[in-house]
């Protein structure tokens, strides 16, 4: 059960100031160098950062002596150190995480293990420790971050090989891993906020990695500012928490919450809604999703790591971490679920008409994050985290695969000086012949995201959709039913847009051009190995949480897959308190779909439908054929144009938010500041007349004399007074 029932404050707590206190009495889990997991990526950042500064200064010297701005690549010697340090620190951190995971696996963990290093902020009645918390939830996140993070670091070695900012790239990427780990390992809300804004900062730096290109720098800025709107929500939520509970530590908050907050009360609802605002910013949900598609301006492995696998899932982590609060606030939870379902559908519709391969994946990510929100919103916290994990596998794979494709296309167009867009799927086609590994692994990921049995996405997405329909209880049945329908529709669209992407990219005839085809190449080993590893995870990753009912129907007789509901049970200590609240207030779940039917039946239906959609879409797109971008104009009207232009949300925000803010700002400066206030001041003080007199003091040029006299004068006055 939950931590709180066993909440005996460990004697270590009194020694927190000393840090590295022995583990709590009674907890058999003995952490192994947890601080080092955090420290290693930070160290990597510092080392790579120093190398990057040195490289930057050399490059600056070249520019000063007349070279081109972003010209030239790093010499192999300059790549050596970042290549080992960058992936190296994350790899070792992954190994350390594995060891800790192994240790936690074998024991019954009744309470989180907290390591406190120093008092960060202690004032009046506030005390915030620089402390980390190790528990099942943070462990799952750490595994994903360091594991997938390591693979993406390795992939980047090949992908970024020729970039002049090689060391800077790894410095930022290491820093990101540090902040992401801080986000999930922090033992209190302010520590999470350190990671929360820290990853936003790294995202800003990496989206604008090629900052000399204005649109890319713009995209980074947009990401940061939009995220800050969310961060505002996070801050206010913390303020309310502290004002009502007097603490911001997870242990303290989650233990006190069920006592302090009445179910459905105003304060806890406000807290969850402000947390939700924070989550919509980081996890790119309606209404703050607009930054994520633009974030594709960053290097593609960045999109895989930050904008698919880890950072954008922080909102889901936040809700899962605060599950007790959300369980106590039904309106807050319904808001999470509704925003999630609507975002899932909305983003999926946009993905249908995008032609840039990364943008399809970006909207797909927004959509899948919507599914996760739906999961944690309907109280299926473990399911949300489960989808977070499987999505990290297959979406990272899709992005890395897209990266390999773009890499190859870019080389081909570069070699022949063809002025075509290397990311436009209309310029691709037939790539399966040139990059078979990418082709096969991306199909694996596509089947996984489409939710086809037995790939990873089937189990996780199915569980969310099932939960949204079957978990209907309390006073919100009709909403849950609606969300269930929306989620089903979004799932169908997922299969469509992903199949479209695969067919346009890899199948049919090659549209790049005959000369270009000669330059198309497969990816190097550093890139294909991570793809294969992620493909394996995309198949088997879902098997850690096969629902008991499905296991019995399909595998029971064979003794396969003993791990039924493993993740649910693993996360139980985190979610138990929330589930207890839900059970007490709402009663047991219905455990059948709104229109009837059990889990196994709907799972089978889902797989059959998804498979059929994939086949039909593939055939229809193959039959329709695709023409290169320059031959095909933009969609001319109707729904296609609307979707192609992303429902004009950016334009809408520009009209109602961006421009009015700028207008008000200019008005405040010109009218309020200069005309009203300063005008009044000048009139009252009649500064202009004073100017003549005071100004004459400066006319003689004897300023040193003034200063000397002034000094003497001060001394003389004081002397006289003292004596």
């Amino acid at each position: 059960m939950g931590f709180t029932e066993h909440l005996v404050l460990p004697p270590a707590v009194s020694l927190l100031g000393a840090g590295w206190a022995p583990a709590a009495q009674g907890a058999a889990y003995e952490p192994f160098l947890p601080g080092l997991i955090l420290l290693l990526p930070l160290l990597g950042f510092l080392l790579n950062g120093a190398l990057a500064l040195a490289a930057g200064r050399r490059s600056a010297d070249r520019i000063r002596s007349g070279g081109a701005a972003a010209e030239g690549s790093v010499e192999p010697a300059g790549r050596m150190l970042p290549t080992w340090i960058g992936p190296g620190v994350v790899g070792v951190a992954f190994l350390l995480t594995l060891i800790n995971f192994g240790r936690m696996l074998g024991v019954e963990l009744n309470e989180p293990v907290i390591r406190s290093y120093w008092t960060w902020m202690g004032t009046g009645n506030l005390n915030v420790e620089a402390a980390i918390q190790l528990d099942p939830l943070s462990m799952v996140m750490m595994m994903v971050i360091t594991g997938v993070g390591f693979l993406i670091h390795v992939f980047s070695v090949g992908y970024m090989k020729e970039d002049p900012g090689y060391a800077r790239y790894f410095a930022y990427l290491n820093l990101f891993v540090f902040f992401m780990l801080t986000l999930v390992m922090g033992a209190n809300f302010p520590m999470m906020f350190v990671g929360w804004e820290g990853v936003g900062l790294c995202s800003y730096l990496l989206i604008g990695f090629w900052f000399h290109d204005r649109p890319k720098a713009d995209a980074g800025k947009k990401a940061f500012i939009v995220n800050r709107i969310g961060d505002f929500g996070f801050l206010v939520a913390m303020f309310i928490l502290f004002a009502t509970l007097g603490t911001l530590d997870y242990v303290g908050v989650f233990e006190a919450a069920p006592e302090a907050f009445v179910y459905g009360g105003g304060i806890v609802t406000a807290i969850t809604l402000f947390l939700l605002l924070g989550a919509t910013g980081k996890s790119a949900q309606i209404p703050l999703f607009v930054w994520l598609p633009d974030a594709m301006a960053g290097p593609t492995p960045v999109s895989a790591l930050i904008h698919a696998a880890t950072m954008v899932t922080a909102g889901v982590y936040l809700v899962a971490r605060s599950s007790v609060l959300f369980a106590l606030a039904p309106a807050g939870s319904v808001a999470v679920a509704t925003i999630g379902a609507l975002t899932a559908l909305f983003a999926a519709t946009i993905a249908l008409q995008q032609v840039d391969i990364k943008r399809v994946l970006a909207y797909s990510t927004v959509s899948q994050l919507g599914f996760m929100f739906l999961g944690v919103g309907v109280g299926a916290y473990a399911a949300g985290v489960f989808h977070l994990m499987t999505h990290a596998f297959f979406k990272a794979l899709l992005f890395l695969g897209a990266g390999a494709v773009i890499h190859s296309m870019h080389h081909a167009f570069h070699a022949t000086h063809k002025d075509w867009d290397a990311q436009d799927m209309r310029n691709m086609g037939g790539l399966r012949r040139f990059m078979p590994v990418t082709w096969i692994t991306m199909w694996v990921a596509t089947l996984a995201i489409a939710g086809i049995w037995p790939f990873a996405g089937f189990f996780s997405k199915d569980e969310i959709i099932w939960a949204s329909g079957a978990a209907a209880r309390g006073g919100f049945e009709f909403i849950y039913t609606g969300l269930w329908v929306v989620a089903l529709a979004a799932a169908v669209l997922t299969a469509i847009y992903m199949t479209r992407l695969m067919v346009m990219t890899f199948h049919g005839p090659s549209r790049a051009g005959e000369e270009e085809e000669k330059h198309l190449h497969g990816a190097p080993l550093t890139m294909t190995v991570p793809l294969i590893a992620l493909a394996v995870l995309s198949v088997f990753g879902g098997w850690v949480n096969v629902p008991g009912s499905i296991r019995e129907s399909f595998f029971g007789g064979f003794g396969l897959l003993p791990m039924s509901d493993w993740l649910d049970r693993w996360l139980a200590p985190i979610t138990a308190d929330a589930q207890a609240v839900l059970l007490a207030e709402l009663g047991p779940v219905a455990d059948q779909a709104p229109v009837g039917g059990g889990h196994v039946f709907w799972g089978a239906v889902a797989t059959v439908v998804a498979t059929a959609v994939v086949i039909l879409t593939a055939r229809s797109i193959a039959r329709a054929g695709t023409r290169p971008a320059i031959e095909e104009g933009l969609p001319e009207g109707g729904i296609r144009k609307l979707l192609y232009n992303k429902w004009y949300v950016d334009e809408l925000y520009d009209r109602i938010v961006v421009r009015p803010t700028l207008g008000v700002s200019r008005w405040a400066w010109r009218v309020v500041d200069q005309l009203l206030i300063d005008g009044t001041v000048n009139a009252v003080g009649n500064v202009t007349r004073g100017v003549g007199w005071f100004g004459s003091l400066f006319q003689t040029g004897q300023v040193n004399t003034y200063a000397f006299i002034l000094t003497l004068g001060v001394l003389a006055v004081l002397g006289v007074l003292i004596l």
Partner: protein
Amino acid sequence: MLNAVAYDAWILHALIWLPLVGALGLFLLPESRAKEFAFGWTGGIFLLSLGLLVQFDPGGALFQFTSTATWIEMWGVSYSLGIDGISLFMILLSTLIMPIAVLGSYNYIKEREQGFYALLLLLQTGIVGVFASMDLFLFYVFFELTLVPMYFIVGIWGGERRIYAAVKFFLYTAAGSLLMLVGIFYLYFQAWSVTGAPSFHYLDLVGTPLSFVEQLWLFAAFGVAFSIKVPVFPFHTWLPDAHVEAPTPGSVVLAAILLKLGTYGFIRFLLPFFPLAAGHATVIAVMLGLAVVGIIYAAWVAAVQPDAKKLVAYTSVAHMGFVVLGVFALTATGIQGALIVMISHGISTGALFLLVGMLYERRHTRLIEDFGGLAQVTPLLATAFVITALATIGVPGTSGFVGEFLALLGAFERHPVMAALAATGVIFAAYYMLPMVQKILFNSLEREENRTLPDLDRREVAVIAPLVALMIGLGVYPQPVLERMEPAVQAVVQHVEGGTVDWAGQGVLGSDQEEIAYDPIRSVGAEPAGSDR
């Protein structure tokens, strides 16, 4: 070791008067050696002041290093010094910023150097005097003394409209000071009539009984004077002009230290002297309202400034809004947050002015649109600029976050709506800062002139590196500062709330302070303060 040289007995006197001695000494040296001498002198003073950190006893009396000598006996004016945990860090901030400002002006100040550095040193005497005075008369003398050197620094070494800016600065602040002087005398005579003995000493004045109406008037007199200095909206319009026209070191000292005289005055005098007025709901509402307006309004105005220096100047107004918010939260957390914002703003905004100054020395322009792509040619400058910008907008891990977070948190307990409105400042901070960063450092290197700009040289690195280190150091481990401030802040809060405060002794706390600082889960379960049941 420090005790062996009786450090405690002379250090405050030395910190006040050594700069003045240095100012005289400057005139004995050839002009060409002026800047080296000034740097060595202020640097030496800074090293001397570091002993305060060692010698200040966090668990000791409220005011330490105290000394008093009769100055003008018949008026009860004394030369009394002493510092508490608040003034301690204000003095350290001042002694730190001075050598950095001097080192930062090596290339900027090319003429009449003796005069310039002498004025800067004179300014330091005034500033440290303000923070170390325990006699109100002495305080006022030093307070006024800061005005004159700054007036000359802007008026002589300033830009094109320096005269207008200097006069505006002088008239604005002098007007405020006069109001305060009237207030000081009223308070003085009132205290005299009660105690029967004339005295300007802080400890003699702090408990003076005043009616609510009297307090309100005096609050207004002191409050306006300090609000102009801070500056609080709408008294801020002298600031952008003064900053834009002032030479870089002038801007640095102005932003980093001089503005803090105002907020320091709030905490040191306004709240303890006039607790009834300061604690009155309407007064609080007005002050918080002005703070919130300042935060948002200044951020908006900053965002549309074409001149980088003016932009930074307006951000000062926004930051000072957070200080006022924290102070008038009247909670320990809020006031400690305000103090951290003051220190953090001194470091990060000081650094921003230095960086903008370095850009100006290279290009002789401060217009944001004249730059672009500088990260490619000046990576060190760009790195320092970005870190400073992040500290300015309060990214966690930097000092800016700690201050704003605590100020907002402290304010939210009592005034949730105001604090929530103020918290939108974090959005608008990104809105004014990131476009400037992008337009200066990022985008393409379009202008030919910018392609040959040199990166920071060693001197410039030495100027900026300590500030950057402090931004991060204070952001990660502010506790040594916070815990030294706590007793002084608790005393102010207790006093305003009507509690008894032993101003001459240990204030309010005593020994249970330890418990507060080191029990992380103290409040868990014990007493969930409120609930929505």
